[in-house]
């Protein structure tokens, strides 16, 4: 069997266009829109010989493949590596990298722990922290918004919500980056990120233990489910790890991207200030427009088909969520950022049974941040060039100098 990047090489189905592109170069990852457009233009299904994978980027097909858990497995890894043939870099997640019926049990526990009602309990924490950070930013006038705001906010509120006794903001952000870089090929970006594995992973593992958590946080809720017999205590530790994998880097990215969108579209910022009811829909538009998670994979669990083409078992499917979120067949003027678009059906949180289980926390955090901004800030202006930080599956800013002017 010929392997490539941890999965079996495939023979592309007849009639599927082949495209010699590497979607994981720093150039593409920093400015992916032209690659997304090209991918959509080439067809419903495209073969990428460089990694021997099939790729989808048109909205409907991407949505259908990504949410079809019966034909397209998550248990074989959501990156290039096929866990059936290759050993994963860490013990697979018991919620992300698993299929029903196993998934149903852990998903239920996580959904309950992260329901809208639970998240409402944290609204004071979210609001007060947002106000404090906005005040600090206004005092400084000019800030480097990635470190001083986008990273500072989730690394303050999230460990508090989870109930972590240990704090290390840098490790939390960098562990997230590692998890998401691992989705991609063994390139320099992934190797650089992974080089800190031995330093960070033991800290993360320890931080998930019950005695490292308070008794009133989200972590404690997961352990209480273990006490009730819904899951084992070892599984509880694994689910707390999922909080730390997916709950920090993603919201850091969401906040940075929201500030980027609003500073680059002053008319939309004015609309948001005038109508605070747009705070939640505006965040969805930020997500659609910037796709913090730009790419995840699925694996054909059996011989199946995509858009009428036969797809053999074991084929890796690159799902370009960022391309689907900018598809002009689905969205009117997709390249325009509109706070009142209400982009129902965007794929930034995925779709179907694996749709982001932490989205209520993300929405709660972002609503608090945007609310604090519109209450206190008159204008948000660029104070220099924004730079993006290439990551194999996250589209995030590296630098965002901003000037905030008080009301």
């Amino acid at each position, binding site marked *: 069997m010929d392997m490539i990047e941890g999965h079996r090489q495939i023979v592309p189905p007849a009639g599927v266009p082949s495209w010699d592109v590497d979607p994981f170069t720093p150039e593409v990852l920093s400015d992916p829109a032209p690659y997304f457009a090209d991918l959509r233009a080439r067809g419903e299904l495209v073969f990428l010989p460089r990694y021997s994978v099939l790729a989808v980027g048109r909205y409907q097909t991407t949505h259908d493949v990504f949410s079809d858990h019966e034909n397209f497995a998550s248990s074989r890894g959501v990156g290039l590596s096929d866990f059936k043939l290759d050993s994963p870099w860490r013990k697979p997640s018991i919620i992300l990298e698993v299929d029903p019926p196993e998934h*149903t049990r852990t*998903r*239920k526990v996580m*959904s*309950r722990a*992260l*329901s*809208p*009602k639970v998240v409402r309990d944290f609204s004071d924490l979210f609001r007060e922290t947002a106000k404090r950070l906005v005040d600090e930013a206004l005092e400084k006038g000019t800030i480097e918004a990635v470190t001083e705001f986008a990273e500072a906010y989730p690394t303050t509120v999230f460990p508090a919500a989870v109930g972590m006794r240990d704090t290390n903001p840098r490790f939390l952000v960098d562990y997230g980056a590692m998890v998401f870089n691992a989705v991609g090929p063994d390139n320099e970006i992934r190797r650089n990120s992974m080089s800190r594995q031995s330093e960070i992973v033991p800290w993360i593992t320890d931080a998930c233990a019950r005695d490292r958590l308070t008794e009133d946080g989200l972590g404690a809720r997961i352990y209480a489910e273990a006490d009730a017999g819904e899951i084992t205590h070892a599984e509880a530790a694994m689910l707390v790890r999922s909080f730390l994998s997916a709950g920090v880097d993603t919201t850091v990215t969401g906040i940075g991207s929201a500030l980027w969108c609003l500073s680059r579209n002053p008319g939309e910022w004015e609309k948001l200030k005038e109508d605070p009811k747009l705070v*939640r829909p505006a965040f969805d538009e930020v997500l659609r427009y910037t796709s913090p998670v730009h790419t995840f994979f699925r694996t054909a669990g059996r011989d199946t088909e995509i858009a009428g083409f036969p797809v053999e078992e074991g084929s890796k499917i690159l799902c370009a969520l960022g391309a689907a979120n900018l598809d002009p067949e689905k969205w009117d003027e997709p390249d325009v950022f509109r706070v009142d678009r209400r982009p*129902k*059906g*965007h794929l930034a*949180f*995925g*779709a*179907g*049974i*694996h*749709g*982001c*289980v932490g*989205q*209520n926390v993300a*929405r709660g955090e972002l609503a608090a941040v945007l609310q604090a901004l519109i209450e206190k800030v008159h204008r948000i202006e660029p104070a220099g060039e924004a730079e993006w930080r290439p990551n194999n599956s996250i589209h995030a800013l590296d630098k965002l100098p901003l000037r905030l002017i008080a009301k």
Partner: protein
Amino acid sequence: MQKITFVNPDGSRTSVDAKAGETVMSVAVANGIDGIVAECGGSMMCATCHCYVDDAWSGQTGDRQDGEDDMLECAASEVRETSRLSCQIKVTEALDGLVVHLPDEQE
């Protein structure tokens, strides 16, 4: 093609076409039914696609899915025996003519 009727709290009705395999939520969103917000897009992570299945149909839409009760507890309007998350009701040929009532509030 199946017909689904959405009844607003004020009693006004909107009937739309649906295809087997779609969910009642996705049909509502595709047809711009205001009373269905569907913030999470169908991943059963919110309760903003809450609806009441009409008494005449409640025996035919099946039982609540695993985990649906937990999420319904977060609904903004009163939860009744006929309450469902419309993202968890799959349209089938047998549901041609289905009537669902929309709650006062979703958020």
